[in-house]
């Protein structure tokens, strides 16, 4: 039990008559990197939305560090230490790179509004600490020379990176990455793989990643869960999963699941 940071049990999400996620169970090991794969529309992002509280759970349980978190508000789940990135990047677009990070550091400070508007000592002390934290994060992640750039002027790859840094600013225990390599060339994907590994070591966190780039998934994930039509198709080590005939069938589309691609 204690070795799993996240446990999902019999998770179901229905939109009207459609079960986008149907009775899915799996667990993310403490400090592990787990991959969540499956054809388009398999329910991967829906699971992210359920874990982070963006959607309400229809049935089932989500347990984070032994605490039930299904149906908590997203900001409370973030506060507990679960955060994510988005498939379509969602930065604070008109803010600078530095301000994006500084904003996300807010959970490390505790001063109140009256303390802020009167500039009392705690406000100034914590504000200084927040600035230092943001600078340190940018330094570690190699964005210092871009800190004044407005977020939406950044090149695409750096925007993805910035979104990950913003997530790290919350000091998460579990990081959910939704297609971090989407739109990246093999070179950038390679870099990203190394980055995810580094992040795990340095920030002592667990990672759950949705990805279509099979080299990335096979390269860094220690465990893989395969979804198809909202149901779990397979789970296990990368080699075992990629050899699984059911998985091959789902990906090659002989059952019609991925025929459009």
């Amino acid at each position: 039990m204690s070795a799993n940071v996240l446990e999902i049990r019999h998770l179901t999400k229905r939109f009207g008559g459609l079960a986008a996620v149907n009775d899915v169970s799996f667990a993310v090991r403490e400090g592990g990197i787990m991959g969540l794969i499956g054809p388009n529309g398999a329910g991967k992002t829906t699971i992210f939305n359920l874990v982070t509280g963006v959607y309400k759970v229809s049935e089932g349980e989500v347990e984070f560090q032994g605490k039930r978190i299904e149906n908590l508000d997203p900001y409370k789940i973030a506060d507990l230490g679960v955060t994510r990135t988005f498939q379509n990047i969602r930065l604070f677009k008109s803010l600078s790179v530095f301000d994006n990070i500084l904003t996300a550091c807010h959970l490390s400070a505790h001063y109140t509004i009256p303390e802020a508007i009167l500039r009392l000592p705690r406000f100034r002390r914590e504000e200084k600490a927040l600035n230092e934290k943001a600078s340190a994060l940018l330094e570690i992640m190699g964005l210092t020379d871009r800190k004044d750039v407005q977020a939406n002027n950044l090149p695409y790859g750096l925007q993805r990176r910035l979104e990950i840094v913003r997530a790290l600013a919350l000091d998460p225990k579990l990081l959910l990455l939704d297609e971090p390599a989407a739109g990246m060339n093999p070179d950038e994907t390679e870099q990203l793989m190394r980055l995810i590994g580094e992040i795990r070591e340095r920030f002592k966190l667990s990672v759950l990643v949705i990805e279509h780039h099979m080299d990335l998934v096979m390269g860094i994930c220690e465990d893989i869960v395969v979804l198809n039509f909202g149901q779990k198709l397979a789970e296990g080590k990368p080699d075992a999963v990629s050899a699984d005939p059911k998985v091959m069938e789902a990906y090659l589309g002989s059952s019609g699941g991925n025929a459009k691609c």
Partner: protein
Amino acid sequence: MDWTYIQGILMLAGINLIAVLGLCLLTGFTGLFSFGHAGFMAIGAYIGALMTVPAGVQAGSIGGLGLPFVVGIVAGGAAAGVVSWFLGRITLNLKGDYFCIATLGFGEATRLLLNNVQTFGGARGWPGVPQYSTVWAVLVVDVLGVFFLANLVKSRHGRNMIAVREEELAAQIAGVDVFRYKMIALVVSAVYAGVAGVLFGHYMSFIQPKMFSMTKSTELTIIVIFGGLGSISGSVLGALVLTALPELLRAFSIWRLVFYGAAVILIMISRPQGLMGGMELTPSGLRKARAARAAKARLKADALREAGGGDAAGGKA
């Protein structure tokens, strides 16, 4: 032009500025549009008057509590804040345009209520409000208003509001209680509007529901957009320029509001991001703007170099 006239315009600009500052937080920093803040001004004006008008009924007036001006200001601001909290409870879950329409309804409902309930004089208005608003009083409130707002915006709380404006979902995922910060922005803006209402009533020495119509609400929102969303200095400039403009256009007599509208349209076409466009006229604000410009130029140079280093013709990926 004599000094009293100029003084009058400055005071009106200063009073507008207070309401505009509050709206600047709500619209410019949190991204919620309101077309009902004249309603909060009305609440402030009437509660303020209730506090300061002398007790005992004189001819044509209604008796108040005869308390000092400061009590009136605090009570007016607080009353508007409390009302906005209830309004927020029921409307802040509405998305964008729907919230906007709800505030419009609130503003008009407040005005009509004051029009039809005779306790405070109904549509005839309430004369005999003491003329406590002096240039100095307005100036002090303005300076305090700017000081508090600037500090709030530059704190983690202000940044959370900006995050809500920029990308609500991302803000939630970053641990921002979106509803709470929208509520704070609404209540603070209502308190500012309430205080502005108190000062306005004590400047005109007469209050009447029709002073707080939708036109007034719209005027406030126009000033915020005109000054530039997300800029306090923009709101200050906007309040000064747009309050003085109708006075400068007096020569056109009945046509002046047409020219006012045309002037606003012209300025917005030539500068859609508003006068200041989110920039602040402070040393740190200017430094930030300069750094952003430099960073953008460097980024462009890098991209050009990369493109030049690769294929000369088709460098753009």
